[in-house]
């Protein structure tokens, strides 16, 4: 009845307190707990992590790379959002 393939999980690891979880790869497991157990063995054999998040890959919604130029254009054209856009006169500091 259950010879079906284990689902794919995306693995995120926090390497130390103060840093966010970062995607490190994926693996297959029967359920979330097993994904966490396997992720410990596959991705943290050398103390690379202190916390693991797992999420089933099929639940991830991603932006479309074919439309990334249009999609991210609004931020490309707004160079005035960066401090380097502005002239600071010589002699002014702490700014």
């Amino acid at each position, binding site marked *: *009845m259950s010879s079906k393939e284990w689902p794919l999980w995306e693995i995120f690891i926090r390497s130390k307190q103060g840093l966010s979880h970062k995607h490190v790869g994926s*693996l297959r497991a*029967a359920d979330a707990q097993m994904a966490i157990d396997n992720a410990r063995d596959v991705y943290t054999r050398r103390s690379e992590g202190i916390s693991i998040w797992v999420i089933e890959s099929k639940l991830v919604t991603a932006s479309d*790379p074919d439309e990334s130029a249009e999609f991210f254009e609004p931020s490309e054209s707004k160079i005035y959002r960066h401090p380097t856009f502005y002239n600071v006169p010589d002699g002014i500091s702490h700014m």
Partner: protein
Amino acid sequence: MSTKNIEELEREFQAKIDADIKIEPNDWMPEGYRKTLMRQISQHAHSEIVGMLPEGNWITRAPSLKRKAVLLAKVQDEAGHGLYLYSAAETLGLDREKSIDDLHSGKAKYSSIFNYPTLTWADMGTIGWLVDGAAIMNQVPLCRCSYGPYARAMVRVCKEESFHQRQGFEIVSLLANGTAEQKQMAQDSLNRFWWPALMMFGPNDDNSPNSAQSIKWKIKRSSNDELRQQFIDVTVTQAEMVGLTIPDKDLKWNEARGSYDFGTINWEEFNQVIQGNGPCNKERIDARRNAKENGAWVREAANAFAEKRKKKELTH
């Protein structure tokens, strides 16, 4: 959706490659690029998994608890490397189970080196030193491969491999500096593994038809012969340092080239092993097949347990 024609897409793709922009899973890529990578990454994954077998042979017979712990850790790393690589191949649309079945039916290939037997403890040293050494030589340039998930997997693999090579060299140098029998055991092991290790880099460049395209796509970053030469040049000195002799009477320093000249590789042997006629091909595939068949109930039990746990959560 994009309305560009295939020539435009291919031109843009090559421009990205030329500009060293990595390709990621959902990006458009030519079918040939996808197929080449799927073949290469899955073969690489199979090699890691089959590569556990020759060393697994010695875990219960390691000469000390320390060596046993080290060997276990190394073999566990190989399993991990196989998993990183299968996952990387899955991002290209590889069907993992089918790919494993292709390995078991003999349709998919893996590195020819793992079809040689591990007859003595010295072979654990030689494998780490030469086989992992050659693998590192191959894999370091792959960290700059154009396909993001493969390159990232290689970075992890290379970080972990360097311990593999060092522990192997340590075993070899201890034996080489031990009793006459121990030194002989190390020499005998080097004699058996030297040529198969050189074959790990694949056929000569003028005999490797797909290499040019792979280099253009930056899947491969160096040619087979370049990597083989690099490997020989660094390894000869290491052998001299521990007082072992490379089993090649044509090996000679070439001042003009700044490299070692070496003898002719027995490509007939290489082809025989690739085609399934090496000393251990059948044994290796049988072991993998048995592992999958005899482990089926574990995978089924895990599924049943997951379903049970899910039901329990729903009723809470």
